[in-house]
């Protein structure tokens, strides 16, 4: 979606302000929101991509005026309500009403280290051979889906080159809708900064993005 999350190339946000000695979490509630979101993700009620979609679906004014973990909290509350795991009234009161809807699994404390050490790979067996090879000239698709996408606006319609082939991966757009779509080949596509930004480009610089196959078309 063309939402506030798609920030690449935007002007007016000012300088980057790094804080020396910044803590991992700034408040206890940030710790709890982080852990709640991770633990609820583990229940398999929704995908990681659906969580990203929920966060970026916040109205742009709210997205841009909320802190990072406020955005996580809003996204989590939205998903809990959408999936019938918690009603707005229950979330306000903190008290459960009625019998909880079951979830597929619950993360136990002794599972955290082994499961999070192993990770949750997103690569899958490919359904077909890759359409592109390293060095192929491509153009990024110009499309503006209203749902979740991993094709930033600043790359759409621009000419680039295939630089790496990473394998076949879960496709975020279908996964965000909770659908089991076929995996897609994932590439690194490289773009000359001039082809993205014209005369405003940093001379000689390049931008790469991780490109799902359906985001790319061939270029003569």
């Amino acid at each position, binding site marked *: 979606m063309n939402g506030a999350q798609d*920030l690449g190339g935007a002007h007016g*946000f000012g300088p*980057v*302000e*790094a804080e020396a000695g910044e803590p991992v979490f700034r408040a206890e509630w940030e710790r709890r929101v982080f852990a*709640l979101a991770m633990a609820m993700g583990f229940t398999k009620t929704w995908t990681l991509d659906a969580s990203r979609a929920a966060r970026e679906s916040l109205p742009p004014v709210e997205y*841009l005026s909320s802190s*990072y973990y406020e955005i996580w*909290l809003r996204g989590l509350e939205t998903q809990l309500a959408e999936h019938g795991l918690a009603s707005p009234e229950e979330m306000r009161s903190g008290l459960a009403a009625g019998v909880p809807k079951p979830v597929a699994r619950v993360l136990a404390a002794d599972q955290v280290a082994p499961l999070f050490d192993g990770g949750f790979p997103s690569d899958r067996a490919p359904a077909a051979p890759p359409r592109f090879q390293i060095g192929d000239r491509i153009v990024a698709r110009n499309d503006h889906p209203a749902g979740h996408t991993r094709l930033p606006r600043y790359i759409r319609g621009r000419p680039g080159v295939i630089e790496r082939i990473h394998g076949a991966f879960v496709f975020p757009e279908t996964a965000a809708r909770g659908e089991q779509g076929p995996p897609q080949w994932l590439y690194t596509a490289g773009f000359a900064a001039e082809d993205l930004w014209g005369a405003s480009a*940093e001379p000689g610089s390049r931008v790469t993005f991780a490109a799902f196959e359906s985001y790319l078309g061939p270029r003569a």
Partner: protein
Amino acid sequence: MPGHDHDLDHSHGSELSPIEARVRALESLLIEKGYVDPAALDALIERYEHQVGPHNGARVVARAWVDPAFRERLLADGTPAITELGIGGRGGEHMVVVENTPETHNLVVCTLCSCYPWPVLGLPPVWYKAPPYRARAVIDPRGVLADFGVTLPEGTRITIWDSTAETRFMVLPMRPEGTETLDEATLATLVTRDSMIGTGLPQAPR
């Protein structure tokens, strides 16, 4: 005056802010429903606040600086090479390590959200997740580096890696000059978090 201050302390000390109250209510609700185990929440926080962090990535970089065969494996396929050091997991399932050279400087960003290589760098700092960095890194990389006090040589070109999928990027910075006699553990102390994102350079040896 002391009495006045005491009253102020009293009225503010025990109250939760609206967001603290909201999160506390949500947590107790999800525990009551059996969806989350409070001990698992504590374990997640402990892991990502105290165990996983840039000290992991620094070990990877230092190993690459002293062991050319490891460096080659790391650049060819990041994930298995990093696993050799016992490092890996959530947010780093598909690691890509990109090497700085005198000709090319690499800079990692996630313009769409906050994708970041957790097992080697920990959770991202606020600036990495905030609009100024996400907006400017791709269009004005030298300006962003200037915000960090980094000036590259004129001839060095910048490659920006926008983390738009589950492939996660870590920069292998150049080994500082004057470190030929240092051992691997000492070298690791020179490797800063920002040098592995590309917004900084390793520290010079003392």
